[in-house]
């Protein structure tokens, strides 16, 4: 199936060459009038997709409806934007022999700034500044007028060495003082932008410094910053999670679970927690006291189903962890051969189930963390070819290069120790849930037990 099938064209590999052979002579004879032979050859002898205009139409001229006679003429003009009355020439569109009148069309774009002028008296009264002489100020205002407040140009032409910010500050400061001094009352000019917005030298200097530091960043620095931002985001997320847990904890301890109660519950749970010696690095196994806790909304009901508690807790978790994470948790549960909803939802089963979900979230977070780290390391590695060594990041690179070998994402860990996979660091940490072979274990258990 390809485009040819869709278009109903023959399947042979060179249909054009086969069919062309007999055709060209015939076609050229049937060449329509009014089309040059060369143009017709370009069509390849194929019928045009669109109906072409009849030749007779091509020959006809459109009826002369408006009798405008348009000509283009080389004519002199003057511009009101110019003060020297210089006469220049340009091509203009002349309709019916009448040249356009009026001002030069582009003259209106010649805007100039009204730079305030001050008298000597005003200067003495309002505008004196210990860091500026009157001569300097005069020069500044002359240049401002001349260059329409293009301060970069002004700073370039300024006889004494002043920064752009200094010049701006002086100009806006003087203009502001003049405005206020000339107005009958402050209220009259308080809305004027010059009065309202003071020029802030320090802020401008800082702004430009920040901008230039961003623009002059090297690629390495940029990457580092991105890493830091990612890290910060992760820390923030963790804090949020911790906070919500902290909020949950007091509720569960004060309202629902007294210590005695917890002791009661420890009994049915203990067989399972004894059965599995928890690995030393894993989180200390909570006895399910907080996950056992019943949402207050249900307790208020006086009567409810055990599964309601589970559903609500899972739902609450998904609202904090996000729907995507919960979907991945569910997927992992399935891969582990665990029912998404326990078949025998007793209190301890529900507690275990919730603990398992928590642990899976921890696992997924760790996987994500590891991925990030891996990306970081590989990014650093890329940089190392381009840039000179010596950044602090590099210090651990030498030894991490080797041990940083993800062994296997799966739970079975069959691939542990296969050192030949060493070099393929990047991309090996898929965050995909554990692969099917590992999920066999619980099923086997079930089979042997049942």
């Amino acid at each position, binding site marked *: 199936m390809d485009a040819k099938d869709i278009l109903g064209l023959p399947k042979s590999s060179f249909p054009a060459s086969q069919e062309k052979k007999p055709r060209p002579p015939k076609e050229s004879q049937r060449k329509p009038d009014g089309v040059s032979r060369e143009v017709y050859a370009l069509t390849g002898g194929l019928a045009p997709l669109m109906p072409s205009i009849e030749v007779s139409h091509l020959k006809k001229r459109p009826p002369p409806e408006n009798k405008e006679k348009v000509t283009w003429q080389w004519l002199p003009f003057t511009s009101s934007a110019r003060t020297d009355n210089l006469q220049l020439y340009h091509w203009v569109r002349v309709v019916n022999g009448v040249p356009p009148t009026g001002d030069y069309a582009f003259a209106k774009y010649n805007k100039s700034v009204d730079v305030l002028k001050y008298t000597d008296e005003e200067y003495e009264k309002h505008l004196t500044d210990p860091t500026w002489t009157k001569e300097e100020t005069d020069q500044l205002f002359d240049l401002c007028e001349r260059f329409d407040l293009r301060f970069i140009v002004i700073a370039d032409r300024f006889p004494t060495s002043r920064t752009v910010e200094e010049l701006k500050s002086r100009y806006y400061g003087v203009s502001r003082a003049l405005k206020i001094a000339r107005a009958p009352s402050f209220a009259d000019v308080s809305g004027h932008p010059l009065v309202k917005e003071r020029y802030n030298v320090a802020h401008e200097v800082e702004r430009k410094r920040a901008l230039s530091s961003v623009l002059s960043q090297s690629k390495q620095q940029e990457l580092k910053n991105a890493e830091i931002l990612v890290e910060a985001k992760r820390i923030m997320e963790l804090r949020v999670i911790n906070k919500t847990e902290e909020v949950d904890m007091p509720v569960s301890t004060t309202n629902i679970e007294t210590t005695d*109660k917890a002791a009661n519950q420890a009994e049915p749970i203990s067989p399972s*927690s004894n059965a599995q010696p928890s690995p030393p690095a894993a989180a200390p196994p909570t006895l399910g006291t907080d996950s056992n806790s019943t949402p207050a909304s249900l307790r208020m009901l006086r*009567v409810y189903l055990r599964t309601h508690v589970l559903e609500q807790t899972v739902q609450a978790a998904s609202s904090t962890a996000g729907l995507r994470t919960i979907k991945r948790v569910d997927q*992992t549960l399935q891969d582990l051969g665990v029912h998404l909803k326990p078949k025998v*939802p007793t209190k301890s089963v529900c507690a275990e189930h919730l603990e398992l979900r928590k642990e899976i979230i921890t696992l997924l977070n760790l996987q994500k963390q590891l991925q990030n*780290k891996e990306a970081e390391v590989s990014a650093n590695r890329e940089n190392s070819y381009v840039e000179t060594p010596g950044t602090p990041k590099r210090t651990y690179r030498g030894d991490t290069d080797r041990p940083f070998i993800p062994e296997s994402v799966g739970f079975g*860990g069959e691939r542990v120790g296969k050192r030949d996979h060493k070099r393929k660091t990047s991309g090996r940490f898929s965050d995909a849930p554990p692969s099917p072979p590992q999920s066999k274990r619980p099923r086997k258990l079930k089979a042997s*037990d049942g």
Partner: protein
Amino acid sequence: MPHQLEGPAAPKSQRSKVARPPEDPDSKKMQNKRLKDVEISFPIVYGTISFWLGKKASEYQSHKWTVYVRGATNEDLSVIIKRAVFQLHPSFNNPTRVVESPPFELSESGWGEFEIAISLFFHNDVCDKQLDLYHQLKLYPEDDTGPQTTKKPVVVETYDEIVFSEPTEAFFLRVQNHPAAVVPRLPAGLNLPPPGPSEILNEKKRGDTKDHPLSQWFMNFSEADELLKLAAARQQVQAHIAKLRRQLSVIDGPSQQLNAASGQ
């Protein structure tokens, strides 16, 4: 054994007076005190068993089915349940069926699958609120369980636990030795008088479903299996977490190892 099933709406008179709560007004006042931080739960199973009628099947009556709520260990639930209301599909005659006595079950025949709402009402001292269960009636077996036979019914059961939070003392006393109840140890400092010895023993046998005609089809719900499965899964996950932590700490280098550990 479909023929043994009894008509739906007719309550069995000999079982109608079972395990009534004490109605003595004097003791009521005292025993209305609620027990904080205590919950009593009753493991139950609800579901349907449906038999295909085979040759006897007609267009509108292809299956005979029974919907029920039973104790998970077939103990008598009338100790808490006063009445069960089964809400059938509106196409049935009198689709709202009330069962006032154990066993809380209902048999019907029909051809279609639908969701049955089961409302449980409890005795006055237990809880004044009702509890709703929903069950999807299943008549036709899954494809992989073979063809329809009249011998083997389609059984769908759901295990759950009815939880009563902060029960009254009276209720607690009444059921604390009942085999259908899962009663916690009382919080320290709470002492209740021992229950009247005879009451429960006398009525114990009446409303249970241990010799139920359908009991051979009842499913077993093993908490141990479930816990074992969960424990195995948790072990795998924890092992993997430990591995990931190791890998992370290797990347971070020894200086940042603490960070990774506290990251969770």
